[in-house]
């Protein structure tokens, strides 16, 4: 029986956060720090004809102004955008100068006085009008067509064909990106907002052409990121350039507006779904095409249309995917990248099919349930999606749903119920953890992972506590620093599976070491005991058979003449995984109420049932799921980055006009976990959930709106003006 895992535990970093003591990247007090402020391009394409910084330089407090004319050149060969490298302008909002001054206000003030002349070139920011290229292969290669989708589609009894679009959306984590950079001789030290300090370290080392060991990066607390801090962004490099130029530490903070061009976004995606089915609802063919926008200088792809390939039984499946080269910054990963976009199209199309066939939408999904992976024929390591369907439907009251649109009302409100399915891979990557257990029973663990908010500090502490048999409050977990052993970036919902497994493994090694000491003892109380005969629990090592036969960790270390025992353990994804498909699933049920006269849509009820392996900490997990649901509500109803294509410029670049959901937009949300026992994915049996929770939501909402109004919305977000 687990003592900590699976039990509710409050965040270990809760105290630091509610008292304002948690330090984010820009909050370190560094003596003699100077402040940077970025000036940005007003045109979308062309070049800088001249840039006059003389007036700005005269302002009090101004120390230096970097432009493409005097900024050090990057040595990186990466195609990713690097700032201040040439006169070429490739997107509106591109940094054209960095003003460094004694104070933030001085830098900001001076930045206004920079005069720039441009040579404008014709830009294309509308993805529909931009030239397209074949998308690069993703992490898992380029999916090949399955069967003969075109022929099967043509032959199908029932055909659905529809186009869907998703606008550019921005992460808009609450913390604006920031870095503090400082040099000590040839060594660079950076505080950055990052989901993976190792990546930033590599990027900076390459950019400056210095050994990795000479760069250290720290990111102790991250104020949300949602993917925006996965790839290194340009500001850490120019902050470091500035620091080297003026020989002082430099702090650089994005403004909220700069976050719209400075750290990527969810790409605009156009999708066309064609589904062929038999009258009884069996899927015959799916052709799911997609075009996503990217920048002129980099190809970013996220395979949105691969989403359904492993979800439904369907012999013929094709997913052509292209990229439109726009004169905008490069997109990046944003929470549930690809999947949530793909799911919006496919899960909406399935709803359309359900109405074409007059089959209940949930029933249709059950008819096409895949018992084995339709792509590879492999079994799933675990898949409790059917239970999610059933549990979710029951809790939601789905059986009371009337099929016909516009058939349910609550006073003047039209009521609609919709459903959709979510899917996310259960990934794991190599991770290393250092673990030290001391004589006094306290523990130190360290790994260069990140905690952008899901509760990594807490859950890894719990896992260590569980397998060391030591109370969580005796454990100190350090993360987010390149001085620590390697861990993957916090992305793809793989942190617990990866770093948690490393903690589990490290604890096993500690046990081994302690047992070795015990075995060497004269008249050892555990003589002949094998590693599996003993356990660490309640601060002691004891035999499983006779729990009274125990020694405290302190006693053992004393015996071995040690103050502490320390291991560094690397965990790898298990070999067995290869024989299975490992995925997490969920079912979403949504109720909307619609006021057709004013175009108001309220998501009044969400029931989300999720099967993602073992739940480590229900308290943080539910919160994580709710956050994802709300992200999905924003995507469905309010979030859009508008572009004025005449100028090629994003226009909704503040929180007043980019509408992340506010509290008043949120009504009842219930999250339910259908636990799976999965011995294949990893020793802990965990799968990720941070992205899965969002995947089906926009589709479920759009489907519910159709049910309420009889109108099908294929372009997100569904704003009041579209409704009335």
């Amino acid at each position, binding site marked *: 029986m687990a003592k900590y895992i699976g039990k509710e535990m409050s965040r270990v970093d809760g105290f630091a956060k509610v008292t*304002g003591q948690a330090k984010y990247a820009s909050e370190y007090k560094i003596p003699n720090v100077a402040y940077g402020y970025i000036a940005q391009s007003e045109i979308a394409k062309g070049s800088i004809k001249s840039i006059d910084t003389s007036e700005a330089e005269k302002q009090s407090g101004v120390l230096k102004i970097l432009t493409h004319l005097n900024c050090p050149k990057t040595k990186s060969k990466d195609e990713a955008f690097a700032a201040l490298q040439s006169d070429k302008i490739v997107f509106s909002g591109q940094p054209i100068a960095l003003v460094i001054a004694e104070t*933030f206000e001085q830098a900001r*003030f001076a930045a206004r006085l920079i005069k720039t002349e441009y040579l404008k070139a014709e830009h294309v920011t509308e993805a529909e009008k931009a030239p397209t290229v074949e998308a690069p292969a993703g992490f898992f290669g380029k999916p090949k067509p399955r069967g003969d989708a075109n022929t099967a589609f043509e032959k199908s009894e029932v055909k659905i064909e529809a186009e869907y679009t998703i606008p550019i959306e921005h992460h808009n984590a*609450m913390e604006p990106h920031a870095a503090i950079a400082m040099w000590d001789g040839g060594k660079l030290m950076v505080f950055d907002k990052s989901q993976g300090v190792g990546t930033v370290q590599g990027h900076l080392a390459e950019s400056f052409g210095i050994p990795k060991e000479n760069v250290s990066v720290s990111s102790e607390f991250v104020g949300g990121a949602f993917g925006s801090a996965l790839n290194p962004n340009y500001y850490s490099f120019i902050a470091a350039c500035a620091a080297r130029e003026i020989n002082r530490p430099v702090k650089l903070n994005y403004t909220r507006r700069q976050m719209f061009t400075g750290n990527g976004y969810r790409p605009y995606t156009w999708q066309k779904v064609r589904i062929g089915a038999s009258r009884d609802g069996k899927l015959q063919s799916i052709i799911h095409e997609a075009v996503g926008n990217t920048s002129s200088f980099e190809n970013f792809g996220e395979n949105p249309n691969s989403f359904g390939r492993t979800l439904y039984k369907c012999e013929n499946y094709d997913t052509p995917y292209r990229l439109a080269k726009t004169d905008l910054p490069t997109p990046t990963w944003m929470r549930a990248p690809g999947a949530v976009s793909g799911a919006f199209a496919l899960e909406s199309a399935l709803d359309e099919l359900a109405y074409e066939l007059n089959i209940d939408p949930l029933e249709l999904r059950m008819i096409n349930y895949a018992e084995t992976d339709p792509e590879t024929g492999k079994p799933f390591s675990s898949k409790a999606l059917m239970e999610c369907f059933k549990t979710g439907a029951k809790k939601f009251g789905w059986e009371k749903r009337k099929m016909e649109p516009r058939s349910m009302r609550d006073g003047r409100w039209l009521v609609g119920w919709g459903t959709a399915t979510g899917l996310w891979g259960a990934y794991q990557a190599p991770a290393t953890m250092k673990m030290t257990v001391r004589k006094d029973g306290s523990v130190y663990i360290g790994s260069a992972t990140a905690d952008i908010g899901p509760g990594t500090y807490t859950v890894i502490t719990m896992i260590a506590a569980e397998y060391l048999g030591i109370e969580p409050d005796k454990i100190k977990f350090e993360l987010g620093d390149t001085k620590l052993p390697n861990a993957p970036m916090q992305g793809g919902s793989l942190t617990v599976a990866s770093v948690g497994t490393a903690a589990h493994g490290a604890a096993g090694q500690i046990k081994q070491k302690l047992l070795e000491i015990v075995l060497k003892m004269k008249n050892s109380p555990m003589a002949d005991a094998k590693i599996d005969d003993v356990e660490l629990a309640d601060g002691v090592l004891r035999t499983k058979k006779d729990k009274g036969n125990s020694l405290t960790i302190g006693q053992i270390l004393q015996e071995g003449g040690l103050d502490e025992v320390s291991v560094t353990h690397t965990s790898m994804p298990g070999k067995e995984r290869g024989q299975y498909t490992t995925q997490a699933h969920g079912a979403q049920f949504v109720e909307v109420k619609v006021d057709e006269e004013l175009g108001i849509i309220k998501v009044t009820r969400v029931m989300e049932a999720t099967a993602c392996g073992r739940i480590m900490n229900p308290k943080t997990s539910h919160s994580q799921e709710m956050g994802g649901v709300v992200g999905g509500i924003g995507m469905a109803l309010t979030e859009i980055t508008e572009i004025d294509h005449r100028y090629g410029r994003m226009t909704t670049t503040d*929180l007043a006009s980019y509408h992340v959901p506010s509290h008043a937009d949120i009504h009842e949300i219930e999250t339910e976990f259908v636990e799976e026992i999965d011995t294949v994915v990893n020793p802990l049996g965990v799968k990720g959930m941070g992205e899965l929770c969002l995947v089906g939501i926009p589709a479920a909402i759009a489907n519910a709106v159709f049910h309420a109004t009889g109108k099908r919305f294929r372009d997100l977000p569904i704003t009041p003006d579209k409704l009335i």
Partner: protein
Amino acid sequence: MIRFILNNQTIETELPKGFTVLDFVRYRKNLKGTKIGCREGDCGACTVLVGELIDKKVKYRTQTSCLMPLANAAGKHIVTIEGINKENGELTEVQQALVDESGTQCGFCTVGFVMSLTNFCLDETPKTNEMAVSAIDGNICRCTGYKSIERAAMKLCDKSEPSAVADGLSCAIEKEIVPEYFKDINFRLKVMSEPAALNRSLQQTVPTRFVSGGTDLYVQRPEVMVHAEAESLFDNTELRFIKESDDFVELGASVVVTDLLESEVFNRLFPNLYKHLKLVSSTPIRNMATLAGNFVNASPIGDMTAWFLALNAQIELSKPPASADGRTAQTRNIALKDFYLGYKQLAKSDDEFISKIRFRKNFTNFNFEKVCKRTYLDIASVNTAISLRSEPPASAGGSSVITKAHVSAGGVAPIPLYLRKTSEFLRGREISQETIAEAHEIIQTEIAPISDVRGAENYKRLLLRQLFTAHFVELFNIKP
């Protein structure tokens, strides 16, 4: 020099009065608990408590420190999270509730929520779930989905039962929601208020620009405001009053939206006051946004402007006196509806400021409607307000005649619009479906909306139609 109390420390600073409180606490005082999420009043991460002596009591309200000039801190108690944290390493009830309910994830928004909820506990508002939730309407969280924070907020309601004897502040001190030193703030502010008062009268050089709450100016041009020689009218006591006479209500120009919400007069005259004003920005912004600022900002979709246009309000414009001891030298009155000449063009000279606002009480019905893309915390796409006098006073169903009518609409022209023709048309008409239908046609001739991020032209036309109908549904239950 500006003097105020920051947490438990008395501050005297020579910094420009346009410097923001946010930058002061973070960069000058290295108090990094207060976060910066936007610098535009939208996110609430920078929320601080602002305590002010009113009727001998210290009254606290939340404000977004990113938009707050130091000038508006003078003589007040500014509280950041560092001034709330307990010294013994324990958490306050508010903080503990957030931890227990998992109300913090990445934590970046959290301090803002702590401040808003702390103010809720200090405040004298009823400790209902609804009020708790409304106390955090200006705080955005991107991680939690709000539900856990909502649970924490509600937990505070369960516990903070109102006490008959003590006021909110004493209760909060007793419950250690705020530290002991809050007890002395009253006295400390009293002794401080004298020199600070100098700052408050209009006797310096003739200012070229005025600042009140700063919620507009600090969003529009923060870098300029820091050094601008703007005269702050926010704390001018002569501009902060609500007076009622037999026929009129008169208000000082620096009255903020929250003052209306808390005013007995307004609650009596506008039975749906809370419901309507809840649609205007958020709690901290309502604590800062003055009526005059809303009028002069001249946004075509200013909510309070639409409101007072529909009351056919008069405004008094004054010029600062030339000499220190002179009374306000020149004043003149003008109807608010005549104040707007063109896009952001006003019938006022640069050195004139709004001093008073006045409207007649002779209406029997008033309604305000607003639609925006997000439920709250959003600028309207279109808004409209209406005041009517009907005789005999209309009750649902009965037939009565409109004897006075004033209708306004925002977001449908370059200026906040008083619908002259529509208002005129309505006078003398019976309250009926036909009247509404005819009025619709007239409205459409009076407005000139343009397509922008808040919606396309046709959408706005349609929306105003629906909202105008909504007035009559709301007031008389008449449907088209």
